[in-house]
């Protein structure tokens, strides 16, 4: 086992993981700040502006506060399950970032290229879907293990909500895969590049279904019933301190993950709009990949802004209406769309 | 509460003491009413409303059907008031609601009152309103201490909580009320606060107000004592 294989097997992935995790955690932390500021600006108020210039140190302050707060385990809670539940929410959300390819490979002067992705798994999208359904387990376990009635209600609600929205989410992604022909994210982006325009236009209905079910998947308004603040306060009522921070980070990591996946599936990922990427990459590769990451970030931020915009405006669905929208409305549309796109592709190919 | 406006003792004090408003030694007092003559306090005055009896189409209709059982009550501000014997109370209320030209289909308010000096100690008061004829009427019934009053919940379901409140605060028992439980007071509260002999502060409040740092909040009349108390409060801790 000489040094070179050791590096390839363990070294490079570890470095890539570190390179990936540091920005992901800062992006998640600053998404919290971004949401509170943008939400405040929607509501004609200023939002956090006392901690640091424009409140930029607010996430640091929140993190520190949650770190120092005592995280209580309630008496009639199941202690072991209560402690491990938040982990089940955060790790899948963070792990999902591994398979996303952020840009075209980086060419070092020595000639070897390093892909902008931690693990370019050929079944990338499937892995993300599997991981996101693992996240539900954390919510249900946490709600049930808290031992009190309100979190139990929250966890039961989130169980049925996830079931209702898992299938439309998968079907809408299937339509994109049908169009792209491969599960690997970099292939999907490459397919959109040589198709000429983004999958947003052929798969518009799939895009709509994806957005709605993604919002439901990440428990955000108008589907934030598991944590309906004004009704049953949510599954993380009994959590405090760092454990609550896990849930909090998990939820916002989910939002970032969904925005990023939406950007790469429907808006062409790191493809720089109105620019011939292949030619630019051939000319000076590193600039193209940096610009690619930037355009990816802008698209992701656009989606995050859209989610916050929805949260500021729309009221919350009731529990049975939420399930009705999932099963009765979204499922047929997603299936019909899949059939439509399949026929379209068949007709085009022939 | 200043000394003279608040009666720490039972407000049962005879009326004469109540009407001596200003303390004697106030120098530039406005012309104090000439009440404060040290005569023997008169017998506790019964409470009777002044003014004259107001007759409206509704009271005439009632007099026609119930004869002299329903007596008009004097009112100083032109309000139709009717006194009904307790025995026929529900019958009158039912008639008022169902009769075509009374049509009192809205119970605006139902409450009780405690008159310790009158011969009949308690009074139950119903304020009714007719949506169609746009008339209002006050029906009163007098009860003795401890006497039960028939419930009006079958006539107007809205009276449910009002009766529970009257029972809670005044101790009037309503016969036939489905769950005459305590509504506004804690379950283990004994005594009925709105009765005249119930002290204003009640046991707890005196204790609470007095024992903030264990010192009385109100200052006595004469100057030196008050200054001593204030000094001690300020620097005694």
């Amino acid at each position: 086992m000489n040094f070179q294989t050791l590096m390839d097997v363990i070294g490079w992935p570890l470095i890539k993981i570190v390179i990936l995790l540091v920005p992901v955690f800062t992006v998640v932390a600053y998404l919290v700040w971004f949401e509170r500021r943008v939400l405040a600006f929607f509501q004609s108020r200023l939002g956090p502006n006392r901690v640091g210039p424009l409140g930029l140190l607010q996430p640091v302050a929140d993190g520190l506060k949650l770190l120092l707060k005592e995280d209580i385990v309630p008496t009639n809670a199941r202690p072991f399950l209560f402690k491990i539940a938040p982990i089940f929410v955060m790790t899948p959300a963070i792990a999902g970032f591994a398979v996303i390819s952020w840009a075209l490979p980086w060419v070092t002067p020595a000639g070897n290229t390093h892909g902008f992705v931690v693990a370019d798994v050929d079944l990338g999208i499937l892995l993300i879907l599997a991981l996101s359904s693992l996240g539900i387990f954390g919510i249900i376990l946490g709600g049930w293990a808290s031992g009190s009635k309100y979190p139990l209600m929250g966890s039961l609600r989130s169980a049925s909500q996830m079931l209702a929205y898992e299938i439309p989410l998968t079907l809408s992604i299937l339509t994109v895969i049908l169009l792209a022909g491969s599960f690997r994210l970099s292939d999907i982006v490459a397919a959109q590049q040589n198709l000429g325009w983004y999958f947003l236009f052929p798969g518009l209905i799939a895009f709509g279904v994806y957005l709605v079910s993604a919002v439901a998947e990440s428990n955000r308004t108008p589907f934030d019933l598991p944590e309906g603040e004004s009704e049953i306060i949510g599954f993380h009522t009994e959590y405090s301190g760092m454990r609550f921070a896990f849930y909090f980070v998990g939820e916002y990591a989910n939002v970032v993950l969904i925005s990023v996946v939406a950007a790469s599936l429907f808006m062409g990922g790191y493809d720089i709009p109105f620019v011939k990427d292949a030619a630019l990459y051939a000319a000076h590769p590193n600039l193209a990949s940096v610009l690619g990451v930037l355009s990816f970030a802008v698209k992701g931020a656009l989606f995050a802004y859209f989610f916050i915009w929805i949260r500021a405006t729309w009221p919350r669905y009731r529990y049975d209406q939420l399930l009705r929208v999932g099963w009765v409305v979204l499922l047929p549309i997603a299936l019909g769309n899949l059939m439509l796109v399949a026929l379209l592709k068949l007709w085009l190919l022939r | 509460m200043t000394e003279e406006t608040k009666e720490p003792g039972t407000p049962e004090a005879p009326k004469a003491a109540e009407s001596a408003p200003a303390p004697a030694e106030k120098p530039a007092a406005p012309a104090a009413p000439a009440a404060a003559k040290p005569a023997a306090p008169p017998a506790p005055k019964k409470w009777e409303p002044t003014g004259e009896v107001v007759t409206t189409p509704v009271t005439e209709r009632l007099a026609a059907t119930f004869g002299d059982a329903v007596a008009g009550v004097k009112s100083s501000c032109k309000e139709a008031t009717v006194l009904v014997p307790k025995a026929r109370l529900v019958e009158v209320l039912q008639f008022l609601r169902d009769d075509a030209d009374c049509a009192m289909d809205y119970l605006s308010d139902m409450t009780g009152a405690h008159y310790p000096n009158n011969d009949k100690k308690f009074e139950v008061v119903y304020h009714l309103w007719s949506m169609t004829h746009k008339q209002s009427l006050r029906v009163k019934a007098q009860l003795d201490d401890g006497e039960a009053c028939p419930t009006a919940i079958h006539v107007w379901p809205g009276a449910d909580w009002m009766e529970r409140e009257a029972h809670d605060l005044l101790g009037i028992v309503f016969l036939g009320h489905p769950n005459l439980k305590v509504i506004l007071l804690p379950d283990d509260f004994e005594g009925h606060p709105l009765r005249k002999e119930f002290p204003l502060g009640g046991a707890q409040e005196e204790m609470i107000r007095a024992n903030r740092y264990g010192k009385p909040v109100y200052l006595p009349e004469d100057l030196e004592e008050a200054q001593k108390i204030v000094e001690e409060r300020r620097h005694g801790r």
Partner: protein
Amino acid sequence: MNAAARFIKMVTFWELIKGMVVTNKYMFKPKVTELYPDVRPVLPYRTKGRLHVEIETCISCRMCEKACPEGCIKVFPPSKEVFKTDKRPAQFYLNQEHCLHCGLCVDPCPTGSIHHSHEYEMVVYNFDDLLFDKETLPYDLDQKQYRWNVLGNVPVKR
């Protein structure tokens, strides 16, 4: 016709988007937050802040003491002979702790010596600092820090 219009509206989330346009409109409008400790609010003339008492003009007639529902004011008039020359009270206690800021004591005061100021920062660490006597009665803190407002008219001295 309106069935088709309704269908299009339903499919394109039309009224939901109209709602979002409204919230976005306020996104770019000026914000209403007042940055309190740095920017002092401008109070109109009639604001009923903390009670101020001008001991010099008080003729210890105890009208305010009788009018107060909470019994916060306690006036001790001077002895008889002193009263002939100098009407000011020997001692004046004001218990700010129970004060409702209702203004019932200001109405009957013949000389307007007890009146509301614009002071609203009345936080203290223990209750007894709220019991003011003649010396510690707050009077005419520098009114500059409470700017007068264009809405207020001339203070009426009865």
